[in-house]
């Protein structure tokens, strides 16, 4: 049986929006089960998207306890995005972004024994974007809405054969906003030109994602992609210099809060990729309201001295009162910490 996100389904979504629009309850925009949306066909855990549900990825990823992620975008039928060079695309209402977090039992065999943890969806409602998390059942047949968050026992074998056990954390409705709120409005973080401008393995073959979207009629006004900015994949040694990769890493992992208009602005530390003021990037900047997060250190970044830099100290911690980011991880992103250390070690120009 082949399902598509048909007109009928879209009508359901639309009626749904209208019928509950008067209530203040955010649940009115969410379906109780992931299958209710009809995003996938066949065995749902396989994530075979129906027509209109388009897979994508971003070049630099938020670290989420080493979880692997599958991402999809859904635009309302007949509507498209308008190209913009900077910032998140301006999505039409009823757009949906889907992201499933999963682990292989053993990262040395990443395609086998997959466990899906949760699927987060961002829906562009008439009241703005809203985020909902669906937790997969043990049988991996269905995922259920959970707005209050959850902690799940999780375990995997890492690429060097060590077993890692931890509590995987599913965010609550407010925590979704905590990262996604910018200038008092929730918005997606990933769908930006510079994070999408690279090749992706579509079923139909490998192709630049933005060009693919153009052929599908999903985006208008796209210039030649070779002229457009591209954020490096910080995991890939060949994607850029140490500095470029480190800036990509702290941009995607920190700047959703640490930028003007987001909650981390309180500290005056701005880590978005566009930031050029060394003090605001943390160089010889004393901490503000850091508490124990200062680690008895004086500055966020001391050029040449990663071990004296608060940024490294907080990234390498899993203590809730010290660690950065504050949410979304229980493990240390060792490779990320190493990259930032390397960057600070080589830093002279400021």
């Amino acid at each position: 049986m082949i399902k598509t996100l048909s007109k009928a389904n879209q009508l359901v979504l639309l009626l749904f929006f209208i019928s509950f629009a008067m209530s203040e309850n955010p649940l009115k925009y969410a379906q109780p089960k992931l299958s209710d949306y009809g995003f996938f066909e066949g065995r749902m855990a396989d994530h075979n998207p129906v027509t209109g549900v388009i897979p994508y990825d971003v070049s630099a990823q938020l670290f989420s306890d080493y979880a692997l992620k599958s991402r999809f975008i859904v635009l309302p039928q007949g509507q498209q995005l308008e190209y913009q060079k900077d910032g998140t695309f301006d999505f039409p209402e009823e757009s949906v972004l889907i992201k499933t977090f999963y682990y292989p039992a053993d990262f040395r065999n990443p395609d086998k024994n997959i466990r899906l943890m949760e699927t987060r969806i961002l829906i562009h409602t008439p009241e703005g974007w809203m985020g909902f998390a669906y937790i997969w059942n043990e049988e991996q047949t269905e995922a259920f809405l959970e707005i209050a968050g959850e902690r799940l026992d999780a375990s995997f074998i890492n690429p060097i054969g060590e077993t890692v056990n931890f509590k995987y954390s599913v965010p609550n409705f407010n925590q979704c906003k905590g990262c996604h709120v910018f200038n008092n409005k929730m918005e997606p973080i990933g769908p930006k030109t510079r994070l999408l401008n690279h090749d992706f393995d579509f079923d139909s073959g490998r192709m630049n994602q933005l060009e693919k979207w153009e052929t599908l009629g999903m985006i208008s006004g796209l210039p030649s992609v070779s002229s457009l900015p591209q954020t490096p994949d910080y995991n890939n040694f060949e994607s850029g210099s140490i500095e470029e990769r480190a800036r990509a890493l702290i941009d995607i992992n920190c700047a959703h809060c640490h930028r003007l208009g987001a909650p981390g602005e309180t500290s005056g530390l701005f880590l978005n990729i566009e930031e050029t003021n060394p003090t605001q990037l943390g160089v010889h900047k004393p901490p503000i309201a850091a508490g124990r997060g200062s680690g008895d250190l004086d500055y966020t970044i001391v050029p040449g001295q990663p071990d004296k830099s608060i940024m490294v100290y907080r990234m390498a911690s899993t203590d809730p009162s010290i660690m950065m980011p504050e949410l979304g991880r229980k493990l240390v992103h060792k490779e990320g910490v190493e990259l930032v250390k390397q960057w600070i070690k080589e830093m002279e120009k400021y």
Partner: protein
Amino acid sequence: MNNHLNFSMMKLIQALTPLLFTTGLLFANLEKELQTQFILAASGDTITIPKGHHKIQGTLSIEGKENLVIQGVGMDVSILSFSNQSEGAQGISITNSKNITLEKFTIQDSKGDAIKAQYTDGIIFRHVKVEWTGGPKETNGAYGLYPVQCENVLIEHSISIGASDAGIYVGQSNNIVVRYNEAFENVAGIEIENSYNAEVYENYSHGNTGGILVFDLPDLLQKQGGNVRVYNNRIESNNLFNFAPKGNIVGKVLPGTGIMILACSGVHIFGNTIRNNKSIGTGIVSYFMTEEAIKDSLYNPYTADIHIYNNVYDRWPGFPELGFDIGQLLAVKYGRNTPDIIYDGMQDPEIQAGLCIQNNTDARFTDLDIEHNFDSWYSPFVANFSEDMSKHNCGAQHPLISKSKK
């Protein structure tokens, strides 16, 4: 047809789900129940924290809500304990909200700040106690009651104990009343930082490292504060060791500090009882005293327009804190009789209104004149500091003295 059926079912489930959530039937555990209520609350709701000592593992958050009351049965009766906190840096976090009232409950042992409110217009803390129960320790959370980037803040009848930065801290906010509170065993009892229009009165701040701090710091979004009035407070025996983690500005506060004004303008200190703070009864200092470089070109490191009047000073003879440079300096110059009001002499050269000191009881004064006396490490020890208060007697020109409350 099929779709239609699904739709009706779905609507039914959809209609029932919130009901189930809000009545709490789905949850045995209070943490999830409270968090769910915080998420689903409608304008005008009151959410109750029941009686008892409840263990909470993650930050409870309120985001984008209006007109909510979060109410316990009473301070020390409804207790949320975060001693096993595994997630999030705060006990309670409130963001992007309007008219939120928190009252009659206690927060214990949060890993980071006890209650943080950000981007909120209208936040009331009333009969709220926040405490770290293991005594003053570096591992305690930084702030107790912590509104930042807020408008219209009221903190009253509340208690903060053990914060490793400030017990009651208002930062980068406007229109603030802090009254009838008690703060002890914190590094700073009460701190107003980069904030405008603050009234701090009838509080009891004692046994902290510093009693009440009014600070303006660089590199922040709200660059400056002003119109801060600190009056009719009891500020006593703030002689606790400084247990702030190094790197934090509050770690520079000298144990034995009653009131400290750092790099502010437009501050009135009056009608306070400032007793037995061993090092500095009231300090008026510029940012230069921190010995930190200033890279923020919009920042004003000086003090100006500071008024100290009608306060009662009282101090047992004894040495100031000797673990800090400034304490050693005071001890060398004054022995066991440290002056009450200490000024670094760094008046903002571009503002006419200076430091006014009048009508205080038993106040002794010294001007360290750091611009001239601090050019080498030993020069402050041989310098003659000016103890003459008369040039700071603004006399009849005093614009606001008649407004002081009795």
